[in-house]
């Protein structure tokens, strides 16, 4: 029977392990890192070199441990139960006379278990030594405010001739379809141009003349033609406002006629 004392000892050996409280309703198995951990704690209680532990005794202690836990808490993690079952099997192998061609003997299995416990113990020791060793940032400090190395970046651009041509073609294409600003500039007949033309031509035509006859000739593009019509009308209105000419329209949608205003009138 595992007595309370052995667990207290375990707690001393390994302070991280939460001791098994014998009179509590909840047993904190989380305090142990798995069945092997429990075995290691139990083995340490034997206070002998791990090479010399009695696996049989250990198996017995473990099974009692699980029993005890089960009494207090219904559910015990499966790996503890697997370990208990395996130890029961190991115990039987150790106690029963060895039989031929039945796999490893009980002694071999016991050796392997002992070896595994040593491995785990070795790693536990390693953790301790690692944490007690020199840790940079704790025991040896780096420079508090290193200047650092400034990196001056030189950009090298990746761009092939094809990229370049594609870009040019793309923008040309795009412009052909959707660039109204550019088109307006070239396609429209500006008010300024209409004003200039009207001013130049007006002197030559002293009588009432259809405003549309002042439009530039050879306007094949209908868009440009309409633009010229609009601009010339605007130019005419502008000049009428300035008192340079007179405008008249005899009926709705009829032709708009223009005449130079006589000076001094």
């Amino acid at each position: 029977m595992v007595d309370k004392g052995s667990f207290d000892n375990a707690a001393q050996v390994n302070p991280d392990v939460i001791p098994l409280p014998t009179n509590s309703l909840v047993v904190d198995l989380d305090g142990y890192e798995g069945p092997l951990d429990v075995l290691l704690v139990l083995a340490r209680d034997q206070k002998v070199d791990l090479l010399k532990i009695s696996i049989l005794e250990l198996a017995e202690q473990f099974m009692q441990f699980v029993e005890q836990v089960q009494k207090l808490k219904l559910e015990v993690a499966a790996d503890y139960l697997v370990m208990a079952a395996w130890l029961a099997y190991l115990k039987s192998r150790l106690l029963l006379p060895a039989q031929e061609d039945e796999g490893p003997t009980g002694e071999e299995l016991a050796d392997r278990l002992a070896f595994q416990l040593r491995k785990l113990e070795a790693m536990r020791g390693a953790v301790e030594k690692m944490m007690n060793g020199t840790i940079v940032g704790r025991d040896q400090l780096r420079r508090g405010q290193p200047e650092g190395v400034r990196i001056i970046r030189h950009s090298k651009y990746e761009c092939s001739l094809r990229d370049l041509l594609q870009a040019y073609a793309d923008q040309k294409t795009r412009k052909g379809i959707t660039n109204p600003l550019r088109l307006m500039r070239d396609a429209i007949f500006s008010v300024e141009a209409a004003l200039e033309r009207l001013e130049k031509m007006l002197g030559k035509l002293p009588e009432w003349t259809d405003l549309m006859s002042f439009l530039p000739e050879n306007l094949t593009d209908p868009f440009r033609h309409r633009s010229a019509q609009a601009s010339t009308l605007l130019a005419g209105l502008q000049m009428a406002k300035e008192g340079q000419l007179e405008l008249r329209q005899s009926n709705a949608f009829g032709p708009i006629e223009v005449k130079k205003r006589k000076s001094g009138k």
Partner: protein
Amino acid sequence: MTVEPEHVRMAEALLFAATEPLDEATLAARLPDGADIDAVLGTLQEQYKHRGVNLTRLAGKWTFLTAPDLSWMLEEERETTRRMSRAALETLAIIAYHQPVTRTEVEEIRGVGLSRGTMDVLFDAGWIRPRGRRRTPGRPVTYGITEEFLIHFGLDDIKDLPGFDELKAAGLLETEPSGLFRDLAGADTEDKEIDPEEEEL
């Protein structure tokens, strides 16, 4: 004045590990009682005087700093490969095809304003250069491409750039410009002769 060497070591470690310059009072508080701070700092400063790092006093506080004559070592030059933005590529193409060309003309051709960075990228790449000034009001600067541009794109001469028709034939121009504006499509190439009389900068 004799200085306790251990105090010098301690001050050295403190100054090294500190995340900010330390004043004398702070150092005194950290060193054993009775340490002669002035002597310790004087010793350290002397010891590091000709080294790669020096003990320096800044605004009344002490810190180790790289020796001024070695600060150039702390600058690393690194080349990074970057892709050009679409705006930069188009601008470059327009400059290549239309040079000499002013900024306003580039904007007019692209139909959008040019952000400051776009030209910078092209200058940075070493692909464009100012060429001269237009003899028009405001005398705007004209731009052209550089020798580096030709080298980068493997061209002997700017005239080797494929023309508009060739671009179309090569399938780079997928959309036929609409008939209404067909006469304008060719206008860009004519623009080149707008003002051959540019001054050299």
